[in-house]
């Protein structure tokens, strides 16, 4: 499993890096939703420019964006290949039975630009903010205690459990799993072996969770006034004044996009 380490570029000093996490979350979140609302072709260039501008402002390398766009692009690529040939009535080019249609082409353009622009904003968020800080900021914005604690604990043990699985899969391969002659169709034996692999992984995680819980209880987890103990509670470093400027600017852009979209769709 190719888990991407999200903290490789979070130590930068750009304006976006110093943007207070809660404001960054609100600003980028609002902009993402504004991008998702876009249905008018005329807005595609502005939203792509805003995403590119913010990415430039964050100082993140272009290689990060191109590397991370590779996989999620596959589903979108399938949509983009199909839509221009299957959707709409206005034929703009024809090769035998294959007809390129204007409406499909426009729909594909809309989907691709929205997808890349929103994903770029997501990469800016993750690339400039440590994951734990994102969770703390979300907790500050009202994320329920149980969800915050579960997210932090799951994140803490994610890489360890992934390593466990890799070791178990290597052991299976060394014992001959996957080297049997291939026959078409599903094999009951293979499904059973994989079910036991996942079962063993769950068992190990469950047993580890019992030890973790005991250690947490000894440190006071679950006690305190109103049972409010929360993991990783921290102080938000919201002293960056320029962050407010950035937030206001980003929110203004989001409002403008929505206003133009509504005005054009009514008119």
């Amino acid at each position, binding site marked *: 499993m190719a888990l991407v380490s999200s903290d490789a570029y979070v130590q930068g000093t750009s304006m976006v890096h110093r943007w207070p996490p809660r404001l960054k979350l609100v600003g980028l979140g609002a902009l993402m939703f504004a991008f998702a609302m876009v249905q008018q072709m005329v807005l595609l260039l502005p939203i792509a420019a805003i995403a590119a501008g913010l990415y430039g402002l964050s100082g993140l390398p272009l290689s990060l964006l191109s590397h991370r766009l590779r*996989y999620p692009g596959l589903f979108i690529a399938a949509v983009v290949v199909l839509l221009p040939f299957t959707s709409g009535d206005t034929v703009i080019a024809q090769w035998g039975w294959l007809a390129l249609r204007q*409406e499909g082409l426009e729909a594909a353009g809309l989907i691709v630009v929205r997808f890349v622009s929103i994903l770029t904003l997501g990469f800016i968020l993750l690339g400039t903010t440590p994951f734990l800080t994102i969770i703390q900021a979300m907790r500050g914005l009202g994320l329920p205690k149980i969800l915050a604690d579960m997210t932090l604990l*799951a994140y803490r043990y994610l890489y360890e459990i992934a390593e466990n699985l890799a070791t178990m899969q290597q052991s299976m391969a060394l014992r001959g799993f996957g080297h049997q002659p291939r026959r078409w169709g*599903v094999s009951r034996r*293979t*499904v059973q072996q994989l079910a036991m692999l996942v079962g063993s992984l769950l068992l190990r*995680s*469950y047993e580890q969770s019992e030890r973790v819980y005991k250690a947490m209880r000894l440190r006071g987890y679950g006690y305190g006034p109103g049972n409010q103990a929360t993991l990783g509670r921290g102080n938000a470093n919201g002293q960056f004044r320029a962050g407010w400027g950035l937030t206001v600017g980003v929110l203004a852009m989001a409002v403008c996009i929505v206003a133009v979209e509504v005005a054009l769709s009514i008119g």
Partner: protein
Amino acid sequence: MHIPDGLIPAQVCAAGYAITGLTTWYSLRQINRKPDPTAEIPKASLLTAAFFVASSIYVPVPPVSVHLILNGLLGVVLGYFAFPAILIGLFFQALMLGHGGLTTLGVNAAMMGIPALVAYHLFNLRQGLGQVLPDRVALGGFAFLGGAVGLGLSTLIFLVLVITTIPAGFDVDTERQVVLTLSLAHVPLMAIEGAFTAMLVLFLHRVKPELLEG
């Protein structure tokens, strides 16, 4: 089977967040009714991480391989913790792997999580309806049902959402036919997911039955 950013209209994304918000509230309410809800958080968290990691496993079905969704299994093992677990897993996938998306997180969570809760209730039916059957048959049978229905419902929601919201200009009959055809194509996958869930539940029942008390 994730809906990526930019594919569906913002109104659908907002509706997805609203449904996910409500279902999360309901699940957390059920969790908080337990005698000591904090006692189960480490278990649910580590199992969330384990399910997230396990979802990368592919079942070889030569000449292709099949990717397991495991949402029915999550419901069977985690009960009401399944919905928050799926929400967190999808959040990790959107941020770390780029699967799904942040604007579509609500839609994806509802699409995967609500069928997981259905699977949990189906699995619990074994205590009433399964009384007449031998223990292992009831356990395996209802686990199969939970796994298969979990995947089946998610697939149906996914297909309906994608086909009806993409501005493809298909007419209603064509949309209905496409949804029906693609849904039927997923029936073998439901059988594999159901069989996988049943085998895993029988394994857990044999070696660690308390894991199934979720």
